[in-house]
């Protein structure tokens, strides 16, 4: 237990065997009483319950059998408030690390104080070694004591860790994994296992239980454990972890739906509330700060809410050691990597290009991996190609895994076989705690044909990225020059159809109007038309009498037909008079008109000199008559 240690945890939980409904303490029930009552209850209840607490001490090694060179983690759990702790006797072991923490939990109306001491031990010798008793003292008396714990220590690599035991740093138990292979899920941290038997639900931050290094992406998850008999209705994240001091890459996707786990013999359902990769910016101690969620428990008829916070978890990030550091090591290259390379073709024409692809695959701080330097023979031009889009990085339980891809254009400038030197990548293996190196084999590229071995172009900044035009007549060749769109053309193009449409509309409306009002329009035009005819007759002075009087008669009859809607042809003068009177014409005017019509008949068939002299008078009289008749209302 060298990586993660609980520090001053304060947990609020509930437990017991009577089922969740009967055992939930009032302080954890939100919304079932007023806060004032809750506070008062706590003040009175806590001191009494402290008195009633019992003392116990447990010594829990992570395994009972190890080999020399391996490390052993031992957790000493002391329950109850004690004055002093004596032991254990660790004369058979080297003490490599020690950390302590205290937690207070309220269980079944009792406040329990729990102190944990995490020890990292290394055996001094093989054989059956013993971790001595631990005694806790209260008021000068031994309040509780643990028994001695026997540890079987074999020779180098002689023993195996028990199934399911978490990996520990160093030794044969933590072989380097193949790059790209995810590191197994971090095992549940001991605090959860120890306390699980007393709590129905708790939230815990989990991190790999191994040495961690600054810059290394570390998979972290916050898991809510709910007892199998707790009817979880829902979980709401109240405050996500801030994770100050880390570079955080949260894993996208919704939290899982829960999986069954067993902790210390109890069945739990684990719900991941937050997960991602964090990388410490600096070495030293860093804290996975608490996360708070609200747990909804109950059924359709009653539901209760419980606010749960995780304990802060202290992580110790180291710096890769200076000893053994390769000269070409790039700071931050922590993880497990394998570099590979390949050409898309191993034979090209001189001047043509082959693509060299270098892939760095593995788990760890892949982002820190820089473009490998390509060592090529003279006459082979090397230029890098942007390939950021080919990188495949995923956040998984190994931190960040995947591959980085780098590509180069190799262009031979003469014939021959070119060797591309090994691509070498030194890195610090965070699992083995050693610097390691991965290399590619030497690659050969053959250039054939054409080339006369022209001068090798000196490498300049990005000179292969852009192309130039070597031959030009320097004319300002126009191509398909865009001349722009003349707004006048657009306006004309839009207006012409509109004008056509408006013209058609107006014409159509006029046509409809005329067709609807044909009668009234004709009536309105009757006098005008008759006057035109009279004027024409007046102008034709030399016309023969028959034609003149016939024309005059036709003008009158035409007026009557248009204005009053009846044809005077075939009617006697008396009938005409009666009809006009029937249409509302003044009798005097009607009579005058009929008299003029009779005169016209005389003029046509029995012309006289007197009548011929009175042509203008007849025209004038008829005009007056027609005007008089035109005033008749329709």
């Amino acid at each position, binding site marked *: 237990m060298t990586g993660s240690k609980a520090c001053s945890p304060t947990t609020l939980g509930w437990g017991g065997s009577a089922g969740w409904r009967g055992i939930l303490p009032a302080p954890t029930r939100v919304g079932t009483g007023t806060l004032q009552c809750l506070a008062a209850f706590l003040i009175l209840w806590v001191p009494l319950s402290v008195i009633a607490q019992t003392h116990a001490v447990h010594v829990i090694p992570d395994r009972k059998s190890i080999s020399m060179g391996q490390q052993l983690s031992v957790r000493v759990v002391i329950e109850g408030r004690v004055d002093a702790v004596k032991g254990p006797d660790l004369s058979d072991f080297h003490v490599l690390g020690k950390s302590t923490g205290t937690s207070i939990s309220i269980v079944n109306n009792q406040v329990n104080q729990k102190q944990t001491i995490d020890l990292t031990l290394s055996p001094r010798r093989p054989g059956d070694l013993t971790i001595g008793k631990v005694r806790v003292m209260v008021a000068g008396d031994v309040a509780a004591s643990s028994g001695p714990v026997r540890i079987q220590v074999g020779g180098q690599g002689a023993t195996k860790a028990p199934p399911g035991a978490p990996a520990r740093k160093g030794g044969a138990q933590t072989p380097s994994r193949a790059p790209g292979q995810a590191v197994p899920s971090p095992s549940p941290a001991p605090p959860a296992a120890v306390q699980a038997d007393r709590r129905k639900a708790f939230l815990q931050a989990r991190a790999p239980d191994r040495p961690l290094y600054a810059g290394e992406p570390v998979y972290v998850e916050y898991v809510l454990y709910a007892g199998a008999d707790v009817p979880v209705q829902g979980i709401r994240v109240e405050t996500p972890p801030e994770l100050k001091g880390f570079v955080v890459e949260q894993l996208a996707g919704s939290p899982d739906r829960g999986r069954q786990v067993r902790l210390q013999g109890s069945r739990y359902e684990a719900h991941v509330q937050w997960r991602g990769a964090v990388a410490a910016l600096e070495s030293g101690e860093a804290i996975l700060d608490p996360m708070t969620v609200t747990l909804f428990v109950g059924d359709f008829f009653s539901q209760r809410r419980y606010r749960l916070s995780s304990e802060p978890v202290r992580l110790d990030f180291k710096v890769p050691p200076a000893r053994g550091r390769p000269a070409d090591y790039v700071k931050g290259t922590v993880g497990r990597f394998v570099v590979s390379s390949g050409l898309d073709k191993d034979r090209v024409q001189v001047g043509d290009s082959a693509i060299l692809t270098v892939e760095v695959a593995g788990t760890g701080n892949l982002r820190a991996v820089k473009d490998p330097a390509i060592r090529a023979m003279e006459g082979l031009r090397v230029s890098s190609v942007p390939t950021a889009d080919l990188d495949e990085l995923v956040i998984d339980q190994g931190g960040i895994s995947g591959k980085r891809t780098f590509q180069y254009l190799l262009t031979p400038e003469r014939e021959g076989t070119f060797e591309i030197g090994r691509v070498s990548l030194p890195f610090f293996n965070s699992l083995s705690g050693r610097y390691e190196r991965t290399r590619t084999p030497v690659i050969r590229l053959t250039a054939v044909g054409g080339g006369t071995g022209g001068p090798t172009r000196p490498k300049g900044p990005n000179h292969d990225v852009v192309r130039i035009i070597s031959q030009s007549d320097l004319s*300002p060749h126009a*191509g398909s020059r*865009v001349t722009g769109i003349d707004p006048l053309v657009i306006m004309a193009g839009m207006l012409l159809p509109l004008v056509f449409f408006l013209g058609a509309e107006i014409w159509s409306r006029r046509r409809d109007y005329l067709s609807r009002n044909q009668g009234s329009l004709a009536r309105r035009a009757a006098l005008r038309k008759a006057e035109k005819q009279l004027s024409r007759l007046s102008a034709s002075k030399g016309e023969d009498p028959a034609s003149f009087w016939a024309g005059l008669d036709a003008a009158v009859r035409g007026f009557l037909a248009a204005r009053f809607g009846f044809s005077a042809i075939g009617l006697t003068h008396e009938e005409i008079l009666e009809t006009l009177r029937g249409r509302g014409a003044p009798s005097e005017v009607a009579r005058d008109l009929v008299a003029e019509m009779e005169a016209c008949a005389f003029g046509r068939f029995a012309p006289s000199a007197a009548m011929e002299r009175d042509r203008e008078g007849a025209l004038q009289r008829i005009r007056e008559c027609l005007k008089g008749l035109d005033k008749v209302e329709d």
Partner: protein
Amino acid sequence: MKSLVQGIQGMLAIGILFFTPSAGAETVEEMFSRGVRSFEDGRYDEAAGAFSSLRDRFGVNSPDVLVNMGAAEFSLGRPGRALLAFHRAMQAAPGSVAADTAAINAERVRADLNRSQGEHPEKDGFVFGRYHDAWSATLGWLNPEAAVAVFLGFWTLLFGSLGLRRLTERRRFARLLSGVAVAAAVAAILTGIAAFGAVRVSGYRVGVVLDQDTALYGDPASLEESMILPEGLEARILDNRGGFARVRLSSGREGFVSAGSMGFP
């Protein structure tokens, strides 16, 4: 008569003496070739000098020269000036081989800028690319003239069919024209939006930031910059006010940049 011929011959001889180029002078074609050779030999500063002389001193307005000038500027580590030259080449002869080459080169310059961005995390936040907004992203690919022509066609069809429908007295023909008018109306609306967008996008004036760490001000009178722009960033020029250009970035942010730090194609 003889003396007249001799006089003309003499003047011709003097003219030839005056106007024969000296042995050290070079033609514009030779200067172009010299620039190409310089570029290929890695003497990018000489190449850039030759190509800029061709354009600025000798008035050679060939897009080929602009393409090569941009390539030389980029190789000298001046991506802003390179992009400016490529933009000018694209505008000088759209659709030509030179314009295509300039477009490819510009994309490569942007890709290189984006790649180097990754190596300098302190510059994070900028993505180098052609200026784009919602209009250019959706309709930037349209040929504005073709879009306007199609729109005018549907517009004419719409009002032509409406007008004919009013004129005709045959009911079946009128019904047919009504259907045509509805279809033409829908098409005219859609093509009208497309034509508007295409014309709008084609009217964008895009400039290039020429200087590294160019200050973007919220107001020309402001003393405090609101953002620092990297060289090679392309922005839409909205307006010119005095010594400042009002620009809009692809992100939609607007501000003022010293006109001397912006290149206008």
